[in-house]
Every structure is written in structure tokens, then in C-alpha cells.
């Protein structure tokens, strides 16, 4: 214990003599660690946000969409999109497949919306009343359209909150009329915001599919079935998701008359798959950001080495005196190595606190979500210490190898 306190006071002596220089050396490490933590926290924060968005959409949501295929059932649309899913497909799935709690076919179009002098273009989704539960939406005001309104093709619309604000400002849109394409619709509700994440409904308008057909005629396939753009459904039991997916695949292949050698002309994606692929992308991004920041940490490490070399040179005589007083090689190198580690460790801790502070500030004022996790902090600080060890080693070794006679003679 006594030995350690002697040792630490020796190290403190070395550093405190040149306080400004020690601080500047540390600054390189502080900036490095702070930027690693800030950038990684941004990466982690956006990953967490994406995942929570997906979570809010419902983890057991499944989406069926058409995919490029040249099989006999496929009809190429004018715009180049494939039009293989039909209203009849959706009905068949909902009647024949078990473990489905809700299902909503949908067709979407980009239409012009006009209210008084305000006008905007927005994605209009035509769907069934079940859409609200499938996409787990909540109403901010008013109501979603009912089964009756769907049946009779009522010209009613539910607005995403951004659309509502663009067209109506702060006024209550519920009950107001609005021109959509070439029909007039009545606003009956506004959706709660889901944020700017993936697949957010904020910028969309939702109307009954039967109403959409009155302004945009649905294309029909060669068999005379009504083409839709996607089918959303929720699985009642998550454990059965794979089973449901297989059942739907086989049903649709039969309905689309695909030969066994043909590829599927549709694709089924579950939220879980989307989530995991997004998470993977986002972690790669986080790592990349961290790696960029780590470069500044490396530069800081070179600064440490530079200063340690200068310090050894400057203290040559001191090293000579210590050697004459009986210091062994390991006494000398451990002194300098501990100095380097002390610099980088302290710098690492300060950098971690600053990085954490910056990411808190970004989280509060910025649009970016940040998340500081304990493992990032531990990683950044230990990398900093590792850098001290690595870049301090050569100067320390140099010091320990000095010839005591020459060292004593130096000025």
C-alpha cells in the first residue's frame, strides 16, 4: 500500500510539473473519447428509435406485396409495377387461413388534396375498417370509418396529423370537407402521430377502398380480379407466424397458378424480419461512426507518445539520478508507462463525461435520438487506456534503457 502511494506520487510529480502540457495531451484523448461516445450514441439512438417505431406498428404485423415475376398470373402495370395481388386474394386468405386476427387489403395512390386555398399532394390509402387495428393506429380526434361506411363507399377520410396540419392549420378538421382528386370527401378523424420513423402514417390519408375506387378505378387482372397494392394482416399467435406465412404462400401460388418452377410473384415480410434487417444496417452504421471517431482517438494516442518522448528526453538527468539511487529498469519504465496510462485514463473519463453530455444535449434539442449505453463508455475508456499502454510503451522502454552515467551527465 505504502509502495503504491510512493509510486503514484512519483507519477503525479511527473505530470503536475507540466500541467498545461499534460492537459493538452489529455485533450487529444478527451476529444477522441467524446466523439466516439457521441457518434456511437447517435447510432445506437437511431437503432433504438427504428426498433421502437416497428414495435409500435405491431410486432406481429405481416405485409404481402407484389413482386416482379414473369409467371402466367402476373400482369405488368403501365408504371412498371407488378399487379399480382387482388382483392379476391385478400378474401381467400381471410377465409381460408387460420391464426389471422385482422386483415386489411389496401391500395394506394398519390392524389391532390385541396381545402380552400391550401393544397398538397399526399399518399391516399384505400383500405378496410380493419386497417386501424392491423396497423395499430390511434385516433387523435374523430373516428375511423365504420363497416357501414365502407360497405356503401362513403366519401369520408381519416387524416394523418401532418396532412391535417398542412391543410387545416390549427383548426379542427373533423367535419370539414376537402377535395381529393375529383371527389369531395368529409374528414371524420385525425390520427395520432407516430413520429417520423419507418412507415409512419403521419403524412397519409386513409379512406375506404370503396371510396378510392370512385376516383381511381382499380385495374383488373386478366381473370377480372381487382388489383390492390398490398395486404396487411396481423397474426394472432406469434409462434404461428412461420406457419401462417407458409400457408399464405401456398394459397397464393395456387390462386396465381404458378408452376412449381416459377418464383413467387408476391413477397411476404413480417415485421420481425424488417426489424432485424434494419437493426443490422443500423449497427453497421453505428460501427462505422465509431470507427471514424476512433481515428481521432488514434491521433490523440500519437500525441501521448510524442509528449512522453519529449518528457523522457527532458528528464534524462532525473532518470540518471533515480538509477543511481537504485531504480531498476522496471521501476523506470513502469513510472513512465503509468504516467501515459494515467493521462489516457483520466482523459478517457473526462471524454466520456463530455461525450455523454453532448449526446444528452443532442437528444434534448436536436431531432436525433441518442442513446449512451454502458458498454460504449467502457469500450471507449478501455480503448483510450489501451492506447496509452501502446503508445507509452516505447518512450517508457527508451527511458529504462538509458545508461545511468550518460543520463547523469546530461543537462
Amino acid at each position, binding site marked *: 500500500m*505504502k509502495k503504491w502511494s510512493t509510486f503514484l506520487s512519483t507519477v503525479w*510529480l511527473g505530470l503536475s510539473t507540466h500541467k498545461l502540457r499534460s492537459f493538452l495531451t489529455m485533450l487529444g484523448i478527451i476529444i477522441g473519447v467524446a466523439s466516439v461516445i457521441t457518434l456511437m450514441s447517435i447510432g445506437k439512438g437511431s437503432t433504438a428509435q427504428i426498433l421502437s417505431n416497428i414495435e409500435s406498428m405491431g410486432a406481429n404485423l405481416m405485409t404481402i406485396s407484389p413482386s416482379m415475376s414473369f409467371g402466367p398470373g402476373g400482369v405488368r402495370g403501365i408504371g412498371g409495377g407488378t399487379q399480382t395481388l387482388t382483392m379476391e386474394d385478400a378474401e381467400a386468405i381471410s377465409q381460408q387461413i387460420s391464426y389471422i386476427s385482422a386483415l386489411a387489403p389496401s391500395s394506394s395512390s398519390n392524389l391532390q388534396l385541396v381545402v380552400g386555398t391550401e393544397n398538397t399532394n399526399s399518399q391516399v390509402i384505400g383500405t378496410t375498417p380493419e386497417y386501424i387495428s392491423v396497423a395499430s393506429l390511434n385516433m387523435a380526434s374523430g373516428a375511423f370509418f365504420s363497416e357501414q361506411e365502407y360497405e356503401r363507399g362513403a366519401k369520408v377520410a381519416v387524416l394523418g396529423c401532418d396532412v391535417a396540419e398542412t391543410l387545416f392549420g390549427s383548426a379542427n378538421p373533423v367535419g370539414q370537407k376537402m377535395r381529393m382528386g375529383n371527389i369531395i370527401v368529409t374528414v371524420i378523424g385525425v390520427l395520432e402521430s407516430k413520429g417520423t420513423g419507418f412507415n409512419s402514417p403521419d403524412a397519409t390519408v386513409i379512406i375506404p377502398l370503396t371510396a378510392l375506387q370512385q376516383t381511381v378505378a382499380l385495374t383488373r387482372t386478366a381473370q377480372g380480379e381487382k388489383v390492390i397494392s398490398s395486404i396487411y394482416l396481423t397474426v394472432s399467435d406469434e409462434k404461428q407466424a412461420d406457419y401462417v406465412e407458409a400457408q399464405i404462400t401456398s394459397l397464393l401460388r395456387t390462386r396465381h397458378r404458378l408452376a412449381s418452377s416459377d418464383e413467387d410473384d408476391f413477397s411476404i415480410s413480417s415485421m420481425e424480419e424488417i426489424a432485424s434487417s434494419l437493426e443490422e444496417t443500423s449497427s453497421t452504421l453505428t460501427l462505422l461512426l465509431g470507427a471514424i471517431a476512433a481515428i481521432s482517438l488514434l491521433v490523440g494516442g500519437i500525441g501521448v507518445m510524442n509528449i512522453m518522448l519529449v518528457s523522457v528526453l527532458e528528464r534524462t*538527468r532525473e532518470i540518471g*539520478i533515480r538509477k543511481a*539511487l*537504485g*531504480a*531498476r*529498469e522496471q521501476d523506470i519504465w513502469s513510472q513512465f508507462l503509468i504516467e501515459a496510462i494515467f493521462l489516457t485514463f483520466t482523459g478517457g473519463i473526462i471524454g466520456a463525461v463530455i461525450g455523454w453530455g453532448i449526446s444528452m444535449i443532442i437528444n434534448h434539442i436536436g431531432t436525433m435520438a441518442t442513446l449512451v449505453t454502458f458498454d460504449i463508455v467502457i469500450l471507449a475508456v478501455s480503448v483510450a487506456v489501451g492506447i496509452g499502454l501502446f503508445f507509452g510503451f516505447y518512450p517508457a522502454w527508451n527511458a529504462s534503457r538509458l545508461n545511468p*552515467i550518460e543520463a547523469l551527465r546530461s543537462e
Partner: protein
Amino acid sequence: MECFQAAEHLYHGHREDHQVDKDKQMIQLRDMTKVYPMGERELTVLRGITLSIEKGELVAIMGPSGSGKTTLLNLLGCLDKPTSGNYYFEGREVSGLNSNELAAIRGQKIGFIFQTFNLLSRLTALANVELGMTYVGGIDRRRALEALAQVGLADRVNHRPIELSGGEQQRVAIARALVKNPSFFLADEPTGQLDSHSGEEVISILTSLHAEQGITLLVVTHDANIAQHCQRIIHLKDGEVVGEESS
């Protein structure tokens, strides 16, 4: 091991009569040389030095510059290794030891007193004295204060070297050597940078340490004034011992 030592003792015993008196022997050099490579040529600084110093002796080594005094001092202080010959320190052959073993001998057995004091300017007198114990068993503050009192600096413990006179700085250096109770004090021109008054003080501290505590002290010096306090003066010239006088 014991058997080996006994054999060694016997071997030296019949060659060298005074080897029998091992307990009294502090230092014994036998035909020690030191040659420095200087590019293609070689510079021979010591040409076969043979001398011995007994415990409790006060010895001066004198000689003109270039006579090899400093080189001899470095070898005696275990700061360097001889090119050939033997160096027995308290009966132990040390010329073949590695740098850490030499460091251990310097730390435990040898107290250095330098011409330029070699104190650390950032440390107080007390901390400088404590530095003498850092690498040998750890710091004992009470002992450090005692040593400072012994050299008459009890009221200067918290002064830094820059706040002390040359004589006081050299006394701190003596306290630093004293603090670990070395078997052997090695002083290199201890008064070389001091005015005659401070020089006298330093000499009187060293001689009284010798008289009262029986320390073994070897002084390398130009200064005839110091030399006259010594029991024995060894004259060195061109890397050889050219004469000895005893008082």
C-alpha cells in the same frame, strides 16, 4: 552452493593472503581495465587497477584530469562494468552482474554524493531525501527527518533546492545517501562547486560521519584540502595507480 563457496574461498585463500580477512574487506579491485571503443580505435582509460579498501576507511583518489578518476568512480559505484579484471564488493564478485543486480547494489549498498548535487529541483529537501529510500524498502519519513537533522538542515526540510545554498544542497544530498545506511559512500568532487566556507562544512560533516559512525568513504577529488583529512590517498595517472600515501 555452500560447498561451492567454500571451494572458492579456498582457491582465493591460497593465492591472496588478505582474502582471509574477508569480513574487513569493503572493496577489492584486481587488475581492472576499462576500454571504450572510439570508432575504429579503442580508448584505454584504466590499465589494470588493483586496490583494496577496508571497512571504515576514509580514502581519497587524486589525479589530474584524464587520469581515469571518473571512470574508476563509475565502476566502483556499479554504474558501469569493467572490460576485464575483478571487482569484489564486500567479497562478492560484481563485475559480471546484470543491470538490475547492479541497480540493487547501488540502491542498498552505495551512497552517492555528486559534485553537482543531483537533487530533483521539483522536490523539497525532505522529498529528495525520501527519494533515497524509494527503491530500497520504501519511504520512512521519520528516518528522513533524522538524516536531515544530522546534516544540520532540520529547519530546511520543506525548501526546494533552488531556495537552498550550494552547501545546503550538498548536505541534502549527503542526507539522501545517509538515509538508507549504505555500506559505502562514494563522493565525486563533493566540494567542487562550493565556496571554501561551504566546502569546509561539507568536509566536516563527512569526516564527522566517519569518526562517529565509522562509515566507509571514498572521495574522488582534486582538492588537497579534502585529501589531507583522509587516512589514505591513492594517486592515479594515465589509468594506473602511481602511488599511495597514508597519514
